């Protein structure tokens, strides 16, 4: 999930000096990586003939491939660096975004929502809205998703280029063009199939490159208890190693957030909105080869997501133990030679990684960026082609285009998406404040969209007009609340329930209120308008759809069994680190 740390990284790194330099072995590993991803794209070109191949990876992915790709598309390098920095700043509280902020939602997607997405054979989330509510809600969702996706991709691209400049001394233009054109080539060649194959490869490299830091760090600090003892020694006033015990009040924790914001805002709305309706991640699961694989994929993804804190949060905590002198970005600018906590991950990598391992770690960062960008452009190409271009083409040409025509448009959309992203990256370079506005804009759509989709799936009575007006009211109220706080900061005590609330807390509560407004408006308008006959809701809504049986399979192959196991582990981890 995007956050304001992108802006912080950019502002900080603009004034820093290079942290590490690569040897020839490290460079060789990076070159081999680039050749591999391009080779995969070229190889898969021959298997990408139809629209289903290009946009849905032929709908033949196994649960494992779809599940790993589902997590990898979210595991961008700025996600890795940003949350490691957050762990240094806020301690283990940052883990909430990986546990309560992800696991329940991913399991809910697999068990409850996936059957409807999968059975209706939609190409996209806006495609589902079109089937359920008609053109209005679908177009609103498609246009907002299309634009926001490429803009966010450009912002990530620029932030990544800045990171590479500071960490490795690479030229910004070189980083932007080489990485984005590589992604463009392999997605244009093999479509979603190529994006997914590369995401699985990138997922493995991210883990194998990033695991170096927690393993050697744990050896250095003497295990978990040794690390905690060092943190207490370095920061006797703060509590950085408890998940829930400091969340009784806004002032008791460095994040300035109350447990209600985490549970209801993050855990029940923001995370469900992102993981169940953001097409960037849902598209990966739609590519599964059958319903059981589609249900299992998010569950497998949840299993891996639960352990991502090992490579993201733990390095930040280890930084608190062994690099206690890192400061905030403003202080880092003023003190010569000082480093900010935003640099904690590359600093830890440079601390432990010798020849080759440094290259592997940097490859993990590049792989993270490319998997995120490929996710953005492949989702953009699908939504733009099927949900925006196709209806317009149908109206103008009065006939359906051929499958080959839409594949061609999809390829062009990929190229255009990448160039718009590059353009956004250069625009952000000129006007840094654009970054905050685009990120805020992205957050406006997510929570209300979840309200519209979940009511559409679970409530037969929701009507076409209600779908549009509920979504519209949710988005509008989210924008209004954001503008209110921008214009009058004292409004924070109404929106986030406390004048002490920080940005993250404000986002959580704004998401919660905009979702509630969307749901209320959808319910009220539904009762005022005529519902669709049940026969038109078959395959789209619970109660009108017969979910196919999983057949006579052993219990250990059933998605619900694995979802239960993962949920038990999730609860246990929260209790252990309470």
């Amino acid at each position, binding site marked *: 999930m995007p956050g304001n740390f992108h802006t912080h990284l950019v502002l900080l790194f603009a004034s820093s000096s290079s942290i590490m330099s690569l040897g020839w072995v490290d460079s060789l590993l990076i070159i081999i990586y680039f050749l591999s991803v391009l080779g995969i794209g070229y190889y898969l070109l021959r298997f990408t003939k139809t629209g289903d191949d290009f946009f849905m990876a032929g709908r033949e992915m196994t649960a494992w491939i779809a599940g790993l790709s589902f997590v990898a598309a979210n595991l961008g390098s700025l996600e890795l660096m940003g949350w490691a920095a957050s762990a240094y700043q806020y301690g283990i509280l940052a883990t909430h975004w990986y546990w309560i902020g992800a696991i329940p939602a991913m399991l809910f997607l697999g068990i409850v929502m996936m059957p409807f997405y999968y059975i209706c054979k939609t190409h996209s989330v806006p495609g589902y809205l079109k089937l359920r509510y008609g053109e209005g809600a679908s177009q609103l969702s498609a246009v907002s998703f299309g634009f926001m996706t490429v803009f966010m991709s450009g912002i990530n691209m620029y932030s990544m280029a800045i990171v590479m400049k500071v960490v490795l001394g690479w030229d910004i233009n070189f980083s932007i063009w080489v990485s984005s054109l590589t992604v463009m080539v392999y997605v244009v060649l093999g479509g979603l199939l190529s994006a997914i194959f590369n995401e699985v490869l990138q997922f493995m490299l991210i883990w194998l490159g990033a695991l170096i830091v927690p393993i*050697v760090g744990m050896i250095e600090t003497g295990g978990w208890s040794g690390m905690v003892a060092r943190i207490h020694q370095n920061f006797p006033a703060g509590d950085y190693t408890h998940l829930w015990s400091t969340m009784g009040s806004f002032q008791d924790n460095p994040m300035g957030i109350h447990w209600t914001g985490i549970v209801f805002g993050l855990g029940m709305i923001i995370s469900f909105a992102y993981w169940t309706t953001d097409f960037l991640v849902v598209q990966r699961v739609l590519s599964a080869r059958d319903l059981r694989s589609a249900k299992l994929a998010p569950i497998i993804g949840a299993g891996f997501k639960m352990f991502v804190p090992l490579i993201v949060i733990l390095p930040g905590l280890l930084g608190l133990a062994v690099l206690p002198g890192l400061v905030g970005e403003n202080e880092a600018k003023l003190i010569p030679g000082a480093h900010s906590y935003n640099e904690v991950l590359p600093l830890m990598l440079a601390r432990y990684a010798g020849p080759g391992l440094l290259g592997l770690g940097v490859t993990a960062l590049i792989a993270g960026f490319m998997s995120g960008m490929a996710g953005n452009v492949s989702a953009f190409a699908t939504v733009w082609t099927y949900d925006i271009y196709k209806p317009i083409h149908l109206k103008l040409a009065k006939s359906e285009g051929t499958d080959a025509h839409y594949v061609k448009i999809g390829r062009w959309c990929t190229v255009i998406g990448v160039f718009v992203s590059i353009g956004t990256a250069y625009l952000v370079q000129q006007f840094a404040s654009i970054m905050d506005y685009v990120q805020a804009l992205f957050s406006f759509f997510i929570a209300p969209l979840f309200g519209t989709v979940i009511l559409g799936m679970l409530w037969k009575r929701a009507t076409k007009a209600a779908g549009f007006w509920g979504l519209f009211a949710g988005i509008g109220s989210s924008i209004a609340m954001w503008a209110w706080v921008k214009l009058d900061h004292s409004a924070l005590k109404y929106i986030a329930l406390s004048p002490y609330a920080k940005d993250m807390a404000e986002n959580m509560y704004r998401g919660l209120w905009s979702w509630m407004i969307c749901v209320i408006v959808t319910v009220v308008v539904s009762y005022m308008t005529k519902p669709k006959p049940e026969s038109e809701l078959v395959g789209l809504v619970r109660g009108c759809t017969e979910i196919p049986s999983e057949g006579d399979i052993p219990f250990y192959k059933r998605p619900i069994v694995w979802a239960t196991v993962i949920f038990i582990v999730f609860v246990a981890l929260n209790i252990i680190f309470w």
Partner: protein
Amino acid sequence: MVGRHKISIWFIIGSLLLIYGVIIFSSNLYEWFFPSQTRTIVLGELHFGVWWGALLIIIGLIYFIVFRPWKKSVA
């Protein structure tokens, strides 16, 4: 996953990890016996790169062999 594709993604991953493992293992082994002193790393005496390179070789070999495209399929 093979599907229509002759080469499984797991085979590609295995190949890449094998190549990475050989490069990291051999360069760190060389560094162990002929230290260049270019950069000091914490716990360098553990020669972590050698063990990590070996681990990559093992994982890569397993994937490479199990998912090799020329493996005879059971009818």
